[in-house]
């Protein structure tokens, strides 16, 4: 029976090894196909739907026979497509950053938003623009990485004090404190400069509107690297999920693994924040949804998260576009409204501590 069971294996994506899976690998792979389909639909809607009503024929023409003088075609090519692409990679990045953090810290509340990583990245970016006079996304994205790394270092360091290490509560508390600190810095700097205040207003709340091609081309390569590392880290996260002692006993180099994972989180969260501002809840909630769908094997969790996150981010962006009449709600606002109840539901779960 055991042999028969063990043989019902299928290769897990994004890894060199497959393992017996409690749910059938075929079912999990079918789920992936469905998610890819849903993502394609959501991306399509994101390109077609907006305050300006653009017909499908015009959209088709924008790609096949572009007329630069046609405003509708320009809106599609220069606004909606890059906006959708930024939402796609930023969603993936934030979701995977959350999944990695949850795996590395074995903490279900770990998330780049809650741990202050996104706020750290945005504080460094704002300071670099306003105080240091840094110009251009290509430069200040590095301040985003730095801010993310500083936040990880401080929050994980503070939360790790004491015998039982970085418990969910300590991590959330340290994250809240660091978030408040960074947020004050950002607010203080922004308040002193009225012109910049206006410009930063939308970015602060988290938005993928007005993210044109330069934003995509300058941040996407970093996010692509981070996403690739994340998709290949399932095996390592599976090892860590059994506890440090067991991970070492199984031959894993846990310090090296943790370091690589934290660097990739800094890149993912830093670049996503540089592109869209601090967007919360994706990193927190989506990995849990993924786990509910595919079980605890991180090789699957990472792939499911990578597909679910942009679906949710783009859907929230679409909701923001259609729900506010003539104007738009920023995706960060929509996700906040939708994410808060999800967060509360998560905290109320009894088995929260077991990850």
């Amino acid at each position, binding site marked *: *029976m*055991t*042999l028969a*069971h*063990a*043989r019902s*294996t299928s*290769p897990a994506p994004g*890894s*060199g*090894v*497959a*393992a*017996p*899976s*409690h749910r059938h690998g075929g079912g999990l792979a079918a789920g992936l196909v469905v998610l890819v389909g849903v993502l394609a639909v959501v991306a399509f809607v994101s390109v077609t739907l907006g305050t300006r009503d653009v017909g499908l024929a015009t959209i088709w023409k924008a790609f096949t026979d572009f007329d630069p003088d046609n405003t509708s075609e320009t809106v599609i090519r220069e606004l909606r497509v890059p906006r959708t692409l930024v939402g796609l990679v930023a969603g993936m990045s934030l979701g995977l950053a959350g999944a990695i953090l949850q795996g590395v810290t*074995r903490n279900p509340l770990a998330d780049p938003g809650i741990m202050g990583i996104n706020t750290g990245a945005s504080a460094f970016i704002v300071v670099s623009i306003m105080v240091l006079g840094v110009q251009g996304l290509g430069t200040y994205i590095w301040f985003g990485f730095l801010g993310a790394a500083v936040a990880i270092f401080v929050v994980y360091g503070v939360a790790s004090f004491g015998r039982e290490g970085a418990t969910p509560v300590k991590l959330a508390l340290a994250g809240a404190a660091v978030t408040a600190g960074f947020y004050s810095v950002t607010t203080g700097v922004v308040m002193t400069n009225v012109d910049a205040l206006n410009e930063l207003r939308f970015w602060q709340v988290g938005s993928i509107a007005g993210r044109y091609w330069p934003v995509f081309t300058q941040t996407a390569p970093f996010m692509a690297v981070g996403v690739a590392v994340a998709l290949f880290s399932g*095996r390592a996260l*599976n*090892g860590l*999920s*059994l*506890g*440090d*002692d*067991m991970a*070492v*006993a*199984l*031959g*894993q*180099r846990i310090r090296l693994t943790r370091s690589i994972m934290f660097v990739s989180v800094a890149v993912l969260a830093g670049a996503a924040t540089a592109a869209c501002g601090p967007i919360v809840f994706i990193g927190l909630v989506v990995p849990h949804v993924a*786990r509910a769908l595919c*079980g*605890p*094997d991180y090789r699957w969790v990472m792939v499911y998260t990578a597909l679910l996150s942009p679906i949710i981010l783009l859907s929230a962006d679409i909701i923001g576009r259609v729900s506010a009449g003539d104007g738009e709600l920023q995706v960060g606002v929509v996700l906040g409204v939708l994410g808060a109840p999800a967060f509360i539901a998560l905290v109320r779960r009894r*088995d929260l501590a*077991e*990850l």
Partner: protein
Amino acid sequence: MTHELRAEDLSLGYGPQDVVSHLDVEIPDGKITVIVGANACGKSTLLRGLARLLAPRTGSVILDGKRVQDLRSVEVARVLGLLPQTPVAPDGITVADLVGRGRYPHQSWFRRWSAEDDAAVAAAMESTGTAELADRPLSALSGGQRQRVWVAMALAQDTDLVLLDEPTTYLDINHQVELLDLLTDLNRRHAKTIVLVLHDLNLACRYADHIIAMKAGAIIREGAPIDVIDAAVVTEVFGLPCEVLPDPVSRTPMIVPRGRHHVPVPESV
């Protein structure tokens, strides 16, 4: 295959003080070694040191002639396995998945899940009696079943040396004996060298080929239980006045504590 596991001048600790200091110890190959001692005597620390979970402050752990810290971690993991005192598992993981995780050191980016992995997992679940639990989530099992699953995972790792840190702690007496019988089977049938930390002295004496009694980070006595465990040693190690009788079942030393309210009653009364 024979293996050598020993410590030379080994000091280990967490805080400023050494928990284990300048210890020399050799684990006999192919035998069951049990480490006993009072709480905080350093027995778990020694086991963790032997399993390279703690870096030595002085000296080293030698595995097959080489210092463990000089070996690649994954190479060590193919020879030496460890079951920690309180292992954790991700929520919702099934028995078969968990046992399969034991194959980690035998896999790599280039080596996929193989027939050998299948066989090792199947054999591990077979010999621990966990095969019928394969599809159950770990969280749904009783303490005794769960501990057998963890042992199965350590077995799937397929190491000649298996270290277990207080594997019987949360089990009732029935499951303690069942688990120790299982470990004895593994030792006899598969010639595995087993090292475990145990609290129950009577079970330790019954199941150990070699017993190591520790106090305050030092080894007080070591050897076959029948040779080294007597009332004086138990009193020294645990600070407990006691009688030591032959176990009516196994003839190994059996410790009967005295305590303040109970003194030996003459048999003729």
